[in-house]
């Protein structure tokens, strides 16, 4: 599938980004360029900094040195820039992070109404559209707690899409799910990929990665140790640690 057009326009530019948690360096001189319409899959062992990296892209984490520019907005201490970036970047979390006191529909209309200034009616019809895209319009009036994990994660995807973002970040979206629910979430993500959305996914689902990725990034100990097209990444990895990781993850 990775043949729909990627433009040459850069949408995310990450340059020499480093970050520390106390004395521990989680990110070390990260460089990454994502073009408009490109789909990047980030993988690596746990604790390698992959989640921290994508959380820096919408400023859920602050980087301490280097630059991150998202769609022309540099992430610095200017809260206006941060707000602009968060409006353009959607995020899906491992633990869904849906709002339990709101119905599915209200989860999806909150952002558009309060941030984008849509009327209730507009927000509702738009939310229903996206809930149909993730194939659960019939659950709209339930509370998230009444839904299965897979359904909740699809609502979380719809909630992000309702903000009409230009970029979607996925932070291990299937890691907290029971095995039989992983597919329904991945199917929705593949649908989304087909629309040409710019996506950055942290995931261990290598089958999914092979299907959708334009760019594979392998991280270890806070560094990007390999960055390649999927064909080369899976068949002929250059780095020893990548080989080891792939052999462990693909052996069963």
């Amino acid at each position, binding site marked *: 599938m990775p043949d729909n057009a990627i433009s040459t326009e850069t949408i995310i530019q990450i340059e020499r980004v480093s970050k520390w948690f106390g004395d521990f360096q989680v990110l070390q001189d990260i460089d990454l360029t994502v073009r408009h319409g490109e789909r990047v899959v980030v993988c690596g062992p746990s604790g390698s900094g992959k989640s921290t990296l994508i959380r820096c892209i919408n400023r859920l984490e602050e980087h301490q040195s280097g630059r991150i520019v998202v769609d022309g907005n540099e992430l610095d201490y200017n809260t206006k820039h941060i*707000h602009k970036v*968060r409006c353009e970047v959607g995020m899906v979390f491992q633990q*869904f*992070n849906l*709002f339990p*006191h709101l119905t599915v529909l209200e989860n999806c209309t909150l*952002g558009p109404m309060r*941030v984008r200034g849509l009327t209730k009616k507009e927000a509702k019809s738009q939310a229903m559209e996206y809930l149909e895209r993730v194939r659960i319009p019939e659950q709209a009036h339930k509370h998230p707690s009444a839904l299965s994990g897979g359904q909740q994660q699809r609502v*979380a995807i719809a909630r*992000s899409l309702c903000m009409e973002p230009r970029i979607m970040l996925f932070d291990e979206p299937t890691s907290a799910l029971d095995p039989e629910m992983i597919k329904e979430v991945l199917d929705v993500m593949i649908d989304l990929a087909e629309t040409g959305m710019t996506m950055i996914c942290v995931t261990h689902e290598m089958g999914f990665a092979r299907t959708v990725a334009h760019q594979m990034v392998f991280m270890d100990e806070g560094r990007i140790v390999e960055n390649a097209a999927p064909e080369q990444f899976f068949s002929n990895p250059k780095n020893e640690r990548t080989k080891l990781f792939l052999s462990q993850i693909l052996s069963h």
Partner: protein
Amino acid sequence: MIRNKAPYDSYWIDALVLFAVVFLIVYVVYRVNTVLVYNWDWSFIPGYLFRWDEELQSYAPNLLMKGLFTTIRLAIWSIILAAILGFIMGVMRTSRRLFPRMLSRLYVELIRNIPPVVFIFVFYFFISSQITPLLGLDNISEDSSPMTLKVLDFLLGPPELLSNVVAGIICLALFEGAYVTEIVRAGIQSIPKGQVEGGMSIGLSRIQLMRYVVMPQAVQKVVPPLASQFIILIKDSSIVSLISIQELTFLTMEVATSTQRVFEIWVFVAGMYFVISYACAFGFSRLEKRMALHKA
């Protein structure tokens, strides 16, 4: 070997404790009756609950009932004020900025580390000399229309005691506000970090996050501890008798002095406090169960 229940073979301890308690009660009653030779006389109590009003030709509440009403008014008004104060202070306590956090911390620590009685004495002189004159409460009975006075009478008790009651309410509210602050802080901090991140990721501002995501969830968690704080407040309100607020404990002291029936009156009033506190606790637990049912 599988056992469903651990066998309980220490019944003799229970029996011993029970025996000791019964013995103690019997002994106390015996001492009171034979050694003190105390003649119990409860007959005066109804007269202090209600009295026959010759003018109105009906029964009117007497000292004890008046005191009870004042106590309930004190508790209700001060929990409302304390909730507002505690809500503001609780939000400040979780602020990212240092100043509001320090201010609210100062308030909470100041109150939690001073004995309530001392606090009430200190604040009473300030409130009664500064705040109540400022509100113009002393002249209210002369300046207001009969209708306003009637409403005030229902809400806050007899107009001639208004400044007295208001001082009591403010003291109690300031005092209990510190505990409500801690309840609200705990409620806010119990909301998982993921909720805030989820809200941030769709572009909500700090204030919107509080308003639409954190607070609605925190309030649900805060209601049960707030209800039990209300019950504590009913009992704590007896402290303000020390600054001559005419609530149940204060008026009971008057009755005790004038009748010389110290035992009976205090035992009876203890029963009154128990009944209202227990009734509230029972009511709140019913309410909570119903709320839990609605949520499911």
